[in-house]
């Protein structure tokens, strides 16, 4: 039995949560560099170059990549022979608050959603037990308002044709894309219970660029959706071009014989994600 101590946990999560705000993941940076070569629109290319410049400037100055420092969603994957000598959830909440204050990240949340009062920081934590031996993995994704507002979901009939579902994903994404910051990546959740379905689409965003679904059927669907959306000419920041989406990741789960929930999480180009093993 491995006991994870608070000090080590806090220090590693702090380092990860801090660095996430000042650098884009390598796989994503490479995808932007590739996109600069294939983007046909001059304006689109200009935007892609600015995304790289912004990432470099953020790393150099420690000014956050994006002013929307959003809220972190944090997945804690706990190996079955692992335990904590502290209260996991309250410690994570405390670390988030401290990092956001120390790094001067924006208070982007309101504690009361309807009255819009108590401007502060917040985060959402999901824990799960996994077949890892004595360790735990912390995965963090920062979600901004633009990405949250444009993500969507629906329930299909269990008898709905594949084509109709694929078209729904493509058409709805094209409709909402200009209201976030393209080029995006798409996480698609198919199946599950409705709350798990939305989570699947968020978890999919942790997959690396070009990491295809292991099932060829879904891998083909991922490529098809990406290519179709890139024909929309929305382009980087909606200024026109053939690079609107950099990758599509589909995740599936068993579902009820009567249901077929589908959700799509859009993730803007300010992709702040990372993980650490403890």
């Amino acid at each position: 039995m491995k006991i994870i101590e608070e000090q080590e946990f806090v220090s590693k999560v702090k380092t990860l949560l801090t660095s996430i705000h000042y650098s884009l993941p390598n796989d994503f940076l490479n995808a932007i560099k590739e996109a600069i070569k294939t983007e046909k629109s001059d304006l689109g290319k200009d935007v892609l170059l600015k995304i790289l410049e912004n990432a470099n400037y953020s790393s150099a100055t420690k000014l956050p990549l994006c002013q929307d420092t959003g809220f972190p969603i944090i997945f804690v994957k706990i190996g079955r022979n692992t335990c904590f000598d502290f209260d996991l959830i309250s410690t994570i909440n405390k670390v988030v608050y401290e990092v956001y204050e120390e790094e001067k990240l924006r208070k982007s949340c309101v504690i009361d959603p309807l009255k819009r009062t108590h401007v502060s920081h917040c985060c959402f934590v999901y824990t799960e037990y996994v077949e890892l031996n004595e360790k735990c993995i912390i995965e963090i994704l920062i979600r901004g308002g633009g990405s949250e507002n444009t993500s969507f979901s629906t329930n299909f009939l269990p008898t709905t044709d594949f084509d109709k579902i694929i078209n729904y994903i493509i058409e709805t994404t094209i409709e909402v894309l200009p209201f976030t910051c393209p080029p995006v990546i798409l996480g698609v959740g198919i199946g599950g219970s409705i709350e798990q379905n939305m989570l699947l689409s968020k978890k999919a965003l942790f997959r690396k660029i070009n990491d295809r679904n292991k099932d060829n059927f879904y891998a083909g669907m991922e490529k098809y959706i990406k290519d179709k959306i890139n024909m929309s000419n929305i382009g980087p920041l909606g200024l026109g071009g053939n690079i609107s989406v950099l990758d599509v990741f589909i995740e599936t789960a068993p579902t009820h014989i009567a249901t077929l929930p589908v959700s799509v999480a859009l993730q803007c180009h300010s992709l702040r994600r990372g993980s650490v093993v403890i």
Partner: protein
Amino acid sequence: MKEYYINLPLKNSSELEQLRVFDKVYFSGEIFVFRDQVHKKIFLGETQQIEFLDFSNSAVYYCASTPKKIGFVIGSCGPTSSYRMDDYTEAVLKLGFKVMIGKGYRSDYVISLCKQYKAIYCITYGGCGALLNKYIVSSELVAYKELETEAMYKFVVKNFPSFVAIDIFGNAIWKK
């Protein structure tokens, strides 16, 4: 696509007549910075705090920056999605604003307002808040301090980059 350097507030609103969609515009001078909650207040007429201000021929930038970092006049300061301001835009234009800066598409209603009020909407580099810090010369809290993150600020900017997305003739980049 042409390039223009424009000072704010505009000396004369006719300066906007030369601009067309896709033109690149570098703004210098004063811009007012506010977003959702201030828009709602203006729409509802809760304007006691800003009555002393002159907004004629001014620009509004939809942004809420991160707090100032040591060595900089402000933090990261990119645009927020503009469509959320659409239904409140006429109330803001009535105050005299002629330039709106943000990111993303807007409604047909806003396109018609730009035509009616001879105003323009510009898109700047969304998601590039660190980089846009380079163009901010100073920042000052102006009103609605109680809104904290969403309070109204005034920035002085130098060659702040943007693209005309709706011109005063009712053209929009996404209608081309």
